[in-house]
């Protein structure tokens, strides 16, 4: 008898995963623990090993599909077994008197939940306070209505069609998992499930009306690239952050002449220890010190409980550009690490990020983020907050500029520091003071060293 394989629980508070790549074709034999499918969650791709041995009868979820935890992704069977009927997601239109074999969606098959690789499962994040995001377990995934169809009213089903959203990929937030209009809207605006069946290119008669959308309006030569994988996750996160946090920008500058000198002196020593010393570890260190002084910058807002969660860990996310897009690996307890340790951790995480080998732990639990745009140049940037964090610090190129010191124009190594912060949690005065403190620490690294508790 065929068994269903469900999307495994991939990590704490992860509610869905995107099928990136099937590693086994339909009809192929799969051994126990053989890598079966690549699934992406929160910018991390994990390989799911097969929890059973048998024939992969059907890939219920196609590549690009976003599947809630606990919903079927594949059907397995024994040698010689086949599926007598379409997979649940494709149940034939039910009739008043459907012959039993049509009602396969309602058929209760033994279910097997795939095991996420243990080393990739994030531990419970104590004190992380990310309660703003609904933590959903398998029991809270989209409910299946009569005939194995997603539980949604005719009007919601019509709405989903209009937006090109596949209801099988939508998690219902209503009573008993009912899919509401807002759920469809959410998936549509995240560009999510639509990827699987992006607007069918059928000729649109003139004046067809409702079908007009951003995509349809384009004329001339265009190329359509499905919004998938990391790009989709980024799009999702960015729009969520922009819609949620009250983004505000403040920019200051720092005189890092002494830091530059110090770093130049230390570079050689670092190299001898196998460490490539950049300025970033100093920025991380300074940010930690300023965060300790301004606890509301190292926080998140719990919208449900109307509470501000002050975090006692200083886990600094570092934005890393990769071929697929931006990822933010996290240096845990950055405040307790030496400059050299930070340099090593940054190099290590950046390397893993570019190789696509980040584990869920590597990107989870951040409390504050630094994005360094210095390598490109420019003046300064207005970064998007890595929600649910409260602030993100933009660091920029260090340039020699004429500045006035003691009534003299002198050449100093200068840089801009920008802070994009959630004005719901902190006001401009705190954010401005925070950046000023970072700037002062960077300006006087010797003072910083003397004040540092971890000397």
């Amino acid at each position, binding site marked *: 008898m065929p068994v269903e394989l469900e999307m495994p629980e991939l990590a704490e508070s992860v509610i869905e995963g995107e099928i990136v790549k099937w590693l086994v074709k339909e009809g192929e034999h799969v051994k126990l623990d053989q890598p079966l499918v690549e699934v992406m969650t929160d910018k991390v791709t994990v390989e799911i090993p097969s929890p059973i041995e048998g024939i992969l009868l059907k890939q219920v979820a196609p590549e690009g599909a976003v599947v809630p935890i606990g919903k079927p992704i594949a059907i397995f069977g024994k040698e010689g077994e086949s599926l007598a009927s379409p997979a649940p997601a494709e149940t034939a*239109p039910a009739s*008043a008197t459907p012959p039993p074999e049509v009602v396969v969606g309602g058929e209760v098959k033994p279910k097997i939940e795939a095991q996420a690789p243990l080393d990739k499962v994030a531990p419970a994040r104590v004190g992380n306070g990310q309660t703003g995001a609904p933590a959903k377990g398998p029991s809270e995934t989209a409910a299946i209505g009569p005939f194995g169809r997603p539980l949604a009213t005719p009007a919601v089903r019509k709405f989903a069609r209009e937006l090109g959203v596949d209801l099988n990929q939508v998690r219902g937030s209503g009573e008993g998992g009912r899919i509401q209009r807002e759920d469809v809207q959410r998936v549509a605006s995240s560009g999510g499930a639509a990827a699987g069946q992006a607007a069918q290119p059928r000729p*649109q008669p003139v004046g067809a*009306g409702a079908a007009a959308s951003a995509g349809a309006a384009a004329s001339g030569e265009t190329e359509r690239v499905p919004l998938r994988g990391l790009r989709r996750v980024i799009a999702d996160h960015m729009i969520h952050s922009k819609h949620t946090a009250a983004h505000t920008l403040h920019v200051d500058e720092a005189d890092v002449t002494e830091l530059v000198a110090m770093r130049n002196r230390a570079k050689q020593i670092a190299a001898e220890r196998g460490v490539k010393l950049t300025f970033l570890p100093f920025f991380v260190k300074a940010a930690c010190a300023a965060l300790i002084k301004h606890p509301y910058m190292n926080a998140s807002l719990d919208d449900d409980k109307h509470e501000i969660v002050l975090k006692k860990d200083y886990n600094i996310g570092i934005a890393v550009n990769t071929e697929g897009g931006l990822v933010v690996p996290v240096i845990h307890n950055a405040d307790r690490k030496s400059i050299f340790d930070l340099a090593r951790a940054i190099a290590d995480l950046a390397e893993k990020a570019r190789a696509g080998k980040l584990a869920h732990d590597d990107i989870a639990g951040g409390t504050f983020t630094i994005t360094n745009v210095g390598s490109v140049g420019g003046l300064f940037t207005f970064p998007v907050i890595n929600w649910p964090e409260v602030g993100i610090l933009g660091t920029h190129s260090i340039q020699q500029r004429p500045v006035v010191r003691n009534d003299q124009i002198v050449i100093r190594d200068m840089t801009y520091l920008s802070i994009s912060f959630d004005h719901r949690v902190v006001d401009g005065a705190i954010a401005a003071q925070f950046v000023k403190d970072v700037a002062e620490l960077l300006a006087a690294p010797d003072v910083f060293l003397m004040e540092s508790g971890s000397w």
Partner: protein
Amino acid sequence: MVANKYDAIVIGGGPGGYTAAIRLGQLKKKVVCIERERLGGVCLNWGCMPSKALLHVGEVITAAHDLKEMGVEFGEPRIDLASLNKWKSKMIDDLVNGVGTLFKANKVEYMVGEAELINKITVRVKKADGRFETLVGDAVVIATGSEPVALPGFKRDSKTILNSDDAVSLADLPKSILILGAGVIGLEFATIYRRLGAEVTVVEMLDRALADTDLEISTLLLRILKKQGINVHLKTKAAGVEVVGSRARVKLEGEINEAREYDKVLVAVGRRPRTGDLRPESLGIAMDGLFIKVNEKRESDVPGVYAIGDCAGAPLLAHKAMKEGIVAAEVIAGLPAAYDPIAVPNCVYTDPQVATVGLSEEQAKSAGYEVSVGKFRLSALGRARTVGISDGMVKIVADKKTDLVLGVHIVSPTAESMVAEGVVALEMGATVEDIGLSIHPHPTFSESIMEAAEALHGKSIHMANVTAPIPTPAKT
């Protein structure tokens, strides 16, 4: 020759076809609807409408007769068949003309003739005068409907051996009629002819009537029909017929094992899609048996060619065809429509009516649900008693785990209308509790749906509950 160019060509003017054409017209498409017989198709001319008219006549006769018990007596009814048929024809003409008026109002062109598919965009129409006209359309909607299945050995002569088209035209009133098949059509005609005074016998090869209906419901219906003097013999087949004069001598095998004579024999063993004349497969259109295979948009595997209604798959019901007509029309107009009902209701116009939607208890079980069932009998319903009725029931089938309604099955007067509540419940994903908590007007037949819902949870007021008792609230 310059062909006439359309946005859409609809082949067939039945409920599916005319609905598609009207919606296309509403969407400002240039559309033509081709019909070879009469606008309205089987539904208006030979099916739903005339049969319901005859049923109504029979119902009033029966009601008048039953009034005797309530102290009101009429004389024996005299049926003037010519007048009855004239009224029926007028009623049908009015309906057909109504469709024609709607066509005009929506700028739908109407053409009488025989359509032939030349290729996926070209339709040749043979008109009544023998001339041909060639039409070209961006889209073609096939809505050719269905026809009665003939039974080998029972050659239709429309006098003694009838199909449903003949039976509804009611050329004369038989004293006795044998109906072959205890499906929807067989049992409806059994009711019509019985009410008009005929001796009615129904034979069915299977061991049950209304094959896909909930067994408890169909069994109850048979018991009621037998009480009305309709003789139903299951596991019985008509092995052969001999027409002697104007009467038929039919050899029966099964529950009855002898030859019996009847004034008329009605063959009602089912309907089949009418796709043969059009030969869609010759255009490379994929078929599913005699049905045209279509997707959710009701488009065949040849892009631009659509099929709706009886020719596009079961169930063979007018309301399903109409919905499909709207879907196909909107898809053609570029709208994101799809045929995606959770369930299609089904009505049987016996006395009382049977109406069902969703899964029967047996279907739900074989689909793997842990099934819970709530029933309410009309004998406990005040409204039923006011019209002297005690036979009938409402049965709700639900998923025990989620309380979601899976099926609603009704044997009751006005079941045809009551079942709509079940349709909405299924489409909205209602739970049985939702139905039970909704106030139903009193006194009505619809209350029995609420009572059945409450009964499922052991909370029916007007009936001794057999299911789980109401949990008493814990004392605080």
